[in-house]
């Protein structure tokens, strides 16, 4: 299962595709079971030059309390920095945040790999 993420051009915020819009909460992200649909969404996102920067697909897994990105890096993006409890999306709380906090999966982040490849 995959979700589509990017950074918003205007402020750099980590955002996720949800029903054609870009939203800040991972819990609201569209989850793609079909790889072809996911790739199509990614291709379309890459045309949204004035909206988002560097869109890419991330792997998503079920956690104890919902769904979460498989990669720890992507969970940090979806939650905010772990060194400051008062900063980032985690401060909103709620079930979606709990799901991210309790996820334990691990995998290399495609976002980082692609970033380094492009460097």
């Amino acid at each position, binding site marked *: 299962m995959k979700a589509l993420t990017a950074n918003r051009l205007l402020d*750099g915020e980590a955002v996720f595709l949800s029903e054609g819009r870009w939203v800040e909460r991972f819990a609201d992200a569209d989850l793609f079971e079909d790889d072809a649909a996911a790739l199509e969404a990614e291709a379309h996102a890459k045309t949204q030059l004035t909206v988002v920067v560097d869109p890419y697909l991330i792997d998503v897994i079920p956690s104890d309390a919902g769904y979460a990105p498989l990669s720890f890096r992507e969970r940090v993006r979806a939650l905010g920095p*772990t060194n*400051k409890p008062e900063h980032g999306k985690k401060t909103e709380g709620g079930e979606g945040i709990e799901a991210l906090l309790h996820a334990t999966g691990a995998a*290399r982040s495609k976002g980082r790999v692609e970033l380094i490849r492009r460097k």
Partner: protein
Amino acid sequence: MYRYDAIDREMLADRTAEFREQCGRRLAGELTEDQFKRIRLMNGLYLQLHAYMLRIAIPYGALTGVQLRKLAFIARTYDKGYGHFTTRTNLQLHWIKLKDAPDILDHLAEVGMHAIQTSGNDIRNITADPHAGATADEADDPRIWAEALRQWSTFHPEFSFLPRKFKIAVTASPADRAATKVYDIGLRLHRNPDGELGFEVLVGGGLGRTPYLGPTIRAHLPARHLLSYLQAIMRVYNRHGRRDNLWKARIKVLVASLQAEGFAREVEEEWEKTDKAAVDLPDTELARIRAAFAPRGFETLPATSAAFEAAKADPAFARFARHNVKPHKIPGYAIVDISLKKPGETPGDCSAEQMELIAELGERYSMDEVRVSYEQNLILPHVKLDDVAAVWKALHGAELATPNRGLITDIIACPGLDYCSLANARAIPIAQAIARKFEDPALAEQIGELGIKISGCINACGHHHVGAIGILGVDKKGEEFYQVTLGGSAEAEASLGQILGPALPAARVPTAVDQLVEVYLRERLGGERFLDTFRRVGLAPFKEAVYAGAH
């Protein structure tokens, strides 16, 4: 302090106006991200995990009160009310919006600041000994030469498209508080036996994926030839540096492949051809820059202060005096270290309120000077001994009086995976966990000088290779692991750390540090530092302590 003149101010005004227009074109879709990325990076604006990050240049780590107040204003108005001082003595703001960036650059320009030379394949912001102008052991004030290099390198057309980024550090003290052995060019200013001022020139040091200590290619370059000689080095690098492979593009790889002697020969040949008079700084210009850093306003005072000694009756102040107060070249004055390493906090972070307090203390007690050190701390370089207790009291009230300079809790850590797009693993929480373990100041003092340096990836922004204990975050199939090295140092007798053993999971790291410290305390002789004991006994007992029972 050097103040920007009309040329500098006009240059900054042009630059910020240009960037405002470029941002507008990007937001309007007239520039693609690929086109815009280089432009924003040339203005210090990176895109990270949660937001844009603005890296603001602090040339040779020197700030006035007005500048520090402006940084506080920007942090409060456009960020989340704090900033992060880095190992390159810059300030990073981690929550910046693209739409605000042009306004921020305008604010910076008002106080002679900018974000130029904080990214890209050019000569980056020049760093120098943070004790410059205050320490008795320097041959000259290195800021004079660092400022000359700033003016020479900024927008230098020949060096704006180098094979890779390029970093220069200057020291004039044998103690080397500028880590010159691990810079692309390290400059060590000294006087030769005839009393002539000159630079020992080191080239090809660096950390990252392939760490090297820079070899000396010239033992004594007459100081007046600094610019022409550096031009020769840059030309050799521009000509022969690898542009085909990102990982082999730094000058350290070129120097290693040619060997120091071969590289030096190329430089000398290039320098021989150079019209030195056309490149080197005219004496009048050097005198103009020198005048900006001339000592002024020091009073004639007794070498000791009754008030300072009396204040030591308070054990907390006495501990601060032992670790955070350093001798000054002028009798009756001291250099005061402000630690940004309160255990549990993020190393190098400073709130807007703290910046404002330090600005005020700098203006009132330190001749309007504040310095940033590559250890991610701040310094008040010129405090009267009579005033140290008052400064301490003010710092104490703002949680800035942690008496741990050089001790185990004075940890260097890069932003790591909590912020940085390139990181493999987090660095800050590891630093926080270690610092909490040793937060008892008496314990930290008993352990003595011990530099822990943590990087979240192989790019080594946290200088892990030169930590007495170095910690490198690695990615093992997406999980955070940490490789420990021992015996590194960036000081005069610099050394690269040796790998202790297999990488450890995050939860094991603080315990491993504890085990390393136990071995040190058991083995140390007399007044040995951790580094001295390690150099004497070697890796084996430390390895045994951490990995015993692991097999």
